[in-house]
């Protein structure tokens, strides 16, 4: 292309510039499709949906997205190495109940109980990672099985009950008002920044994508694949229990049925919308945030437009489906 520019023909230069713009926009379309989907949906809602374009509503969307973003980031890490974690939703339930149990029933200090809860999540993730990496069971099965086990454990611990009326100092962890937003939003923001750093600015993050694309090549180039895969699952588990704690604080109720299988699948869908791939090697922190925001906005639109509650899920899924179809058709045309 540089050869073309050297020609002193005005027409040629114009053509070259044009093609550069075209190439740039093409690259943008190809790699930032999630931004386009997000903007289309957001602008559509701003213009056509009643009561959407208020500051209050948009702040509300941020509040609602901040917590699921954390699981979505953990899931993105796991998807990047070509794995999958189906136990996420059940870990959310376990984390939710266990943190309440530590504080209310055992009377532990709040900080300590949150740390214990995170450690339990880390432990569950470590078990997942060990079974996947050391015993070489496919991740789908491992996490399906541990999901059953974790759900059973949470049910046994709770004995089918829920904890209401959490103490004030515990609620303060997620509800303290800082600059007009609850602290759970700031926790979400910190996690996003940490994951951005982890995925895009560290050797660990680069190794994730490398392992997702080709495990053997990564191994041969000196990456400690076992350690990275196990720690990825551990991080995902820890993030899930963190979400459990924050969700419990948000609704002031600790119950093992929080999260569940639905949460897992919505998280995976958000990660895919954000550009992660089930076959591994792809994923960005930025994309995960956008994916969750896209789903929350769709939910918000469906809520605001007063659609029948029963058809809520169907409409939500149909919109998500059309977003994914759009993304795939676009990629097909661009190739």
């Amino acid at each position, binding site marked *: 292309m540089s050869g073309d520019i050297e020609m002193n023909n005005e027409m040629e230069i114009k053509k070259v510039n044009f093609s550069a713009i075209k190439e740039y926009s093409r690259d943008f379309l190809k790699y930032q499709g999630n931004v386009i989907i997000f903007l289309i949906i957001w602008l559509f809602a701003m213009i056509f949906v009643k009561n959407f374009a208020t500051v209050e509503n948009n702040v509300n969307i941020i509040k609602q997205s901040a917590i699921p973003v954390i699981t979505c980031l953990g899931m993105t890490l796991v998807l990047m190495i070509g794995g999958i974690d189906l136990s996420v939703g059940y870990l959310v339930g376990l984390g939710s109940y266990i943190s309440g149990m530590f504080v209310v029933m055992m009377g532990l200090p709040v900080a300590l109980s949150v740390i214990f809860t995170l450690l339990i999540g880390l432990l569950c993730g470590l078990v997942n990672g060990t079974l996947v990496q050391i015993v070489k069971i496919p991740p789908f099965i491992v996490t399906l099985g541990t*999901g059953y086990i974790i759900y059973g454990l949470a049910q046994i611990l709770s004995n089918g009950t829920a904890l209401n009326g959490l103490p004030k100092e515990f609620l303060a962890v997620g509800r303290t008002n800082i600059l007009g937003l609850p602290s759970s939003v700031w926790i979400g923001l910190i996690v996003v920044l940490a994951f951005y750093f982890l995925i895009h600015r560290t050797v660990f993050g680069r190794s994730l994508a490398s392992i997702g694309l080709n495990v053997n090549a990564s191994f041969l180039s000196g990456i400690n694949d076992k350690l990275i895969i196990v720690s990825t699952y551990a991080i995902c588990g820890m993030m899930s229990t963190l979400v459990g704690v924050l969700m419990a604080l948000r609704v002031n109720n600790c119950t093992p049925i929080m999260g569940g299988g639905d949460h897992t699948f919505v998280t995976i869908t958000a990660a895919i919308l954000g550009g992660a791939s089930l076959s591994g090697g792809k994923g960005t922190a930025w994309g995960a945030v956008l994916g969750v925001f896209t789903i929350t906005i769709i939910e918000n639109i469906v809520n605001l437009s007063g659609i029948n509650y029963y058809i809520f899920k169907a409409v939500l899924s149909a919109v998500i489906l059309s977003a994914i179809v759009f993304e795939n058709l676009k990629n097909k045309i661009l190739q």
Partner: protein
Amino acid sequence: VQKKLLKKILIVLFCIGGFILIGSLIPNFLTYNNLINITRQSAMIAMCAVGMAVVLISGGMDLSTPGIIALSPMISAILMLAGLNMYIAIAIGLLSGIIIGIVSGVLISNINIPAFIATYVVGQIASGIALVLGKGASIGGLPRGYMMIGNGSIFDIPISTIIMILYVIAGSIMMEKMRIGKHIYAHGGSELTVKFEGININKLKYFAYAASGFCTASAGILLSSQMNAVHPTQGADYLLDSVAAATIGGVSLLGGEGKIWTAAVGALFMGALRNALTMLGIHPFFQNIFVGTVIIVVVAVSVLSKNKDMESAKVF
């Protein structure tokens, strides 16, 4: 070859022996009535597992199970209550399952959406439609003939069990004796190879997901006839259970491996396990832990034994 056959026979004998040994320790477990009851209760999961196995063998994944289990019987029930002939209503319900399967197949093969996402979203839409059709509540008062499908029996064998066995036989014949079945196995092994052979991959995928939709719809109709009512969220538990049953039955999630009848045996095994735990008076909360552990252990054993075979071919 003989060594392998011997090994297989030994495994089967070992399983049967273990079943009888453990079963005899549990009071009232090894009675004709209880065992036949297990087959009746697990007929639905077994039928779902047959459909799931077809899709898993083709290298895909079907998460639309809960939606189809709710929607297909809902359609049949509404048509029946509107006065349509029972058999036509059931046929239309089954057809709806096939159509949902084909929709998933089109999304997966023509638009290249990952099977995991496409089938999940399609299932969610189906269960949403089921909720709207049932107005969020269950529909009862179905005709007596419909109820007899799930609750009647011929020569002391429940009709549900007979239907399940017929499905397993039909599925096995389709996958092992017919050309399309061989193609599905080959597709699970290597999609590219099948493509270069000149086989129409898209048709193959439509067929696999339609078969799964058909089996799942039948399971839903059987379930609603056993309960004599259709509930719009009746399928919620069946998704993970049918994947687990197929996996316990030795179907590989990576595709190309496994047999239909072993998937059904996996479902029966899970049903027997749950039944035995209940008989022993173990709280249902603990049952999930058992089921989860069994899934992991069964697959770990098969993976470890396979790794031993592949040790000699190891590069790294």
